[in-house]
């Protein structure tokens, strides 16, 4: 039997989904009442009055709730999920606004009715009177603080955070050369095709809640809902249905709807459901990517960085339920594969009257990569050196691993790179894209009147973030293997990938392994799906669980086969003496034998009953430290994250007249250690690259000065179609195994998106000869940039 690890096996998820038999949140709960919300049309306002009388005549109306109806813990602000010592002024929303609203889209009234149409009818007829207040929009306004988002947060400053290693100021002061750069990235968002949704059923007899939510963390939601509704954890089930994409936005919890819907279900003694529409997703979920950076770098004649100082400002929107994760990731992952002698980073996280900002695929790395890569390119340009050579001179070398960057990472642990070979990665990339041949190509193109450019960008990614994940493996008497892990799935093929791991560990056919994720009934301790951690965390946990089950199976089989466990192997689900296929017994039979029975419930079970002669009567049927059944439960908790890395190169052509950017080639070299399913990893890279391209060239949240989101729909928020994504994404892999987990792997989920803005900025700059310091770059942006540059330089 060949190994499943590394196999390009087709996904087990596909058959059901391809037939239209998926069960996404809105597909469930046909019998439920439906919720809709009255949301603020103002970016900042005081609520004066809520008049619901106009809604009373709507047929099918059941309930209307405002803040005044919320009891106890529901009347408190939603949790601040990730506290941090520097987050001195953290603010989170109430589930329904109390006296003030702080962004367009903030929920004020919840309506419950027989269906969504009627609920919206009722919501439309509710009249809220406001006193509009000045809106703070954009980092400039937030910093100037002429107006405040929260009256008790001076300067709109949620947090100011600093990390430092060495004395960057001194290093820069004494450096042979110094450069300063201002770099900006604009706001975008995850925008999965399926928005958020919640369904809740309250069982009044059992006093238990069962809910489904389109989430990236069912255990997180369960804990939060149990706390808010005063229920024991064991009285709440949270089941993650099929989820139509997450990309980070669905890690936030509890959304107001996630506590209000179950609360209403319990009050009304009826199932209640909420499915957001696209506009709601734009104005009531979360965005990411808006930061402004000022870099000062001191370097020597070789282009080596002796001192790097980064000061940046992060727009966190109206509230910070997810704490400072995005800017913390920027500040630490900015260093990439490099080792400046001294580094200082300081950021301000600022409130604005806009939608909250929480991680979106990359979670602060794209910004950090953009800043570092533009800085290195600027150094190369200043010195007239090759961009690849300057990078090589700044790389951490393979023999310096593990490398301690001297900072604290987003998991609260030291930022130590465990493994990686950046010079090898760069060599592969140059080879793949034909880096050294490009100059000639560019010159030929110039002769033809074409403007082409090449860029590259390198990144490092801390994956497999803790604190832990767990896995449970059980061999059933049928021989089938059931696996459960607590984190969730949004299309990453976890059921396939984890089945591959278990099939290998146990020695069973891949088709006999069935995996369940994200169901608190099946596995109750978990963290969630984010930070490219599933393969590392759950992969390792189910591998360890499978090993326990395997050891147990061998022990039981050894008794039955009267052999030593060391002489046994499991192949294709049969336990046999090594090299003796005729000796085998099926794992299902072993499972039967592992559970001493009084009653034979079927034919196979007879073998385990008291008179079947299979037990040693000098010992108890179940040994003291043992359990019936072939099961294994294990947890994986690494000492710190494991570092994947990658480099992208892009060749672009810009149109001299229309300033359109066309990507001629896009190359990815990627190191996530050994690949469990190369097809799935490539799919993840494709998707990430598409989001990187979208974010670099097309996507931008267009807020006007009064805090209105002008492009809150797919008509005006430009997610890439097939025509915007490179026709071919060329991928090569490097595999430096991780020493930090039993499978030696690293995460791959976010890799594709991280260097998107950086690499395209670099390629455009190379084509145009104009410094690119701000992204995204639409044709109009490029047109203006050209104009401004030629004015400055004329």
């Amino acid at each position, binding site marked *: 039997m060949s190994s499943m690890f590394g196999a390009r096996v087709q996904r087990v998820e596909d058959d059901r989904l391809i037939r*239209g038999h998926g069960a996404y949140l809105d597909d469930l709960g046909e019998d439920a009442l439906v919720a809709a919300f009255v949301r603020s049309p103002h970016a900042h306002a005081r609520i004066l009055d809520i008049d619901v009388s106009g809604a009373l005549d709507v047929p099918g109306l059941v309930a209307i709730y405002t803040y005044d109806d919320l009891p106890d813990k529901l009347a408190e602000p939603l949790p601040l999920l990730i506290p941090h010592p520097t987050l001195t002024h953290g603010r989170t929303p109430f589930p329904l606004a109390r006296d003030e609203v702080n962004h367009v889209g903030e929920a004020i009234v919840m309506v419950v009715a027989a269906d969504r149409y009627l609920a919206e009818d009722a919501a439309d007829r509710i009249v809220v009177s406001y006193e509009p207040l000045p809106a703070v929009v954009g980092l400039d306004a937030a910093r100037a603080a002429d107006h405040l988002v929260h009256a008790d947060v001076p300067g709109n400053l949620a947090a100011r955070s600093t990390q430092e290693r060495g004395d960057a100021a001194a290093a820069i002061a004494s450096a042979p050369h110094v450069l300063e750069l201002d770099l900006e990235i604009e706001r975008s968002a995850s*925008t999965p095709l399926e928005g958020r949704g919640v369904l809740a059923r309250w069982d009044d007899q059992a006093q238990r809640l069962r809910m489904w939510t389109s989430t990236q963390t069912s255990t997180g939601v369960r804990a939060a809902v149990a706390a808010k509704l005063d229920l024991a954890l064991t009285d709440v089930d949270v089941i993650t249905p099929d989820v139509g994409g997450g990309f980070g936005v669905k890690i936030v919890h509890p959304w107001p709807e996630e506590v209000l819907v179950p609360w209403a279900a319990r009050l009304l003694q009826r199932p209640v459901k909420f499915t957001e529409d696209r506009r709601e997703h734009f104005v009531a979920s979360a965005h990411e990517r808006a930061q402004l950076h000022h870099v000062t770098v001191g370097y020597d004649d070789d282009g080596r960085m002796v001192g790097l100082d980064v000061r940046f400002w992060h727009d966190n929107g109206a509230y910070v339920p997810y704490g400072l994760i995005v800017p913390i990731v920027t500040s630490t992952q900015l260093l990439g594969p490099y080792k400046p002698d001294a580094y200082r980073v300081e950021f301000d996280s600022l409130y604005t009257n806009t939608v909250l900002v929480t991680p979106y695929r990359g979670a602060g790395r794209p910004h950090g990569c953009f800043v570092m890569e533009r800085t290195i390119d600027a150094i190369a340009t200043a010195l007239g050196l090759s961009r690849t050579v300057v990078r090589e001179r700044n790389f951490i070398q393979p023999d310096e691993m593990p490398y301690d960057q001297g900072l604290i990472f987003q998991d609260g642990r030291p930022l130590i790179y465990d493994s990686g070979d950046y010079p090898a990665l760069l060599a592969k990339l140059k080879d793949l894209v034909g880096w050294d041949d490009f100059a000639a190509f560019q010159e030929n193109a110039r002769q033809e009147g074409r403007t082409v450019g090449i860029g590259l960008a390198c990144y490092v990614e801390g994956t497999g973030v803790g604190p832990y994940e767990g896995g449970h493996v059980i061999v059933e008497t049928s021989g089938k293997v059931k696996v459960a892990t607590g984190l969730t799935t949004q299309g990453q093929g976890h059921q396939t990938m984890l089945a591959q791991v278990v099939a290998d560990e146990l020695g069973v056919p891949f088709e006999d392994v069935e995996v369940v994720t994200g169901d608190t009934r099946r596995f109750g301790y978990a963290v969630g799906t984010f930070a490219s951690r599933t393969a590392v965390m759950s992969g390792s946990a189910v591998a360890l669980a499978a090993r326990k089950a395997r050891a147990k199976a061998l022990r039981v089989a050894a008794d039955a086969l009267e052999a030593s466990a060391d002489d046994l192997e499991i192949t294709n689900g049969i336990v046999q003496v090594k090299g003796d296929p005729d000796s085998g017994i099926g794992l299902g039979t072993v499972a039967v034998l592992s559970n001493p029975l009084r009653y034979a419930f079927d034919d196979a079970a007879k073998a385990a009953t008291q008179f079947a002669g299979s037990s040693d009567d000098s010992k108890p049927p179940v040994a003291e430290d043992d359990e019936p059944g072939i099961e294994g439960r294990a947890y994986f908790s690494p000492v710190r994250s494991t570092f994947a890395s990658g480099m992208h190169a892009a060749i672009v052509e810009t149109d001299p007249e229309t300033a359109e950017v066309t990507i001629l080639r896009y190359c990815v070299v990627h190191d996530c250690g050994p690949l469990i399913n190369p097809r799935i990893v490539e799919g993840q890279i494709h998707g990430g690259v598409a989001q990187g391209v979208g974010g670099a060239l097309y996507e931008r949240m267009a807020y006007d000065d009064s805090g209105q989101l002008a492009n809150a729909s797919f008509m005006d928020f430009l997610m890439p179609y*097939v025509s915007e994504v490179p026709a071919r994404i060329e991928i090569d892999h490097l595999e430096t195994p991780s020493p930090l987990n039993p499978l030696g792997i690293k995460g791959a989920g976010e890799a594709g998106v991280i260097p998107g803005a950086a690499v395209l900025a670099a390629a455009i700059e190379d084509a145009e000869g104009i410094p690119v310091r701000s992204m995204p770059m639409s044709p109009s942006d490029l047109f203006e940039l050209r104009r401004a540059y030629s004015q400055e330089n004329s």
Partner: protein
Amino acid sequence: MTDATELHDATELHGATEVHDVRLTVNGAARTAAVPARRLLSDCIRHDLGLTGTHVGCEHGVCGACTILLDGVPVRSCLMLAVSADGQQITTVEGLADPDGTLSPVQQAFTECHGLQCGFCTPGFLTTITAGLRTTPDPDEAQAREIVGGNLCRCTGYQNIVASVLRAAEILNDRKAGRA
């Protein structure tokens, strides 16, 4: 526990709102629904007819997840009222496979080429491509991209979707020639 909420059932509710009888042939079967005039076809298919394979991604006709075939032509069901489809033939993703369960060439290609990840946009692609291959049975890569040019996917980056279109054409031709 007594179910104390005495809600009107749908018929009575709609008794306060006028409903219209809509007769459709959906995936070959005669179906009827009684719906208010403003009911979207997408909601009718999903909730009144219980065929939840067709998904709603934006409700403004841009993403294409809700695409069904109306008399064979791909149509955004979120942009249609159920009452305007009265008397017509609809094919949804649930109707693409053969009665014996054999996947259609397009469905098969998607599974072979890893053309789906979360699967939410997929039904819209499947119906669109099914119709596209009828018009262009032997597309080259540019034509394949054109066929899927109006559907959004956030997961796959489209690479494997385009590959699926080309593979689907292959399978289609193989089946016609009796090779598969």
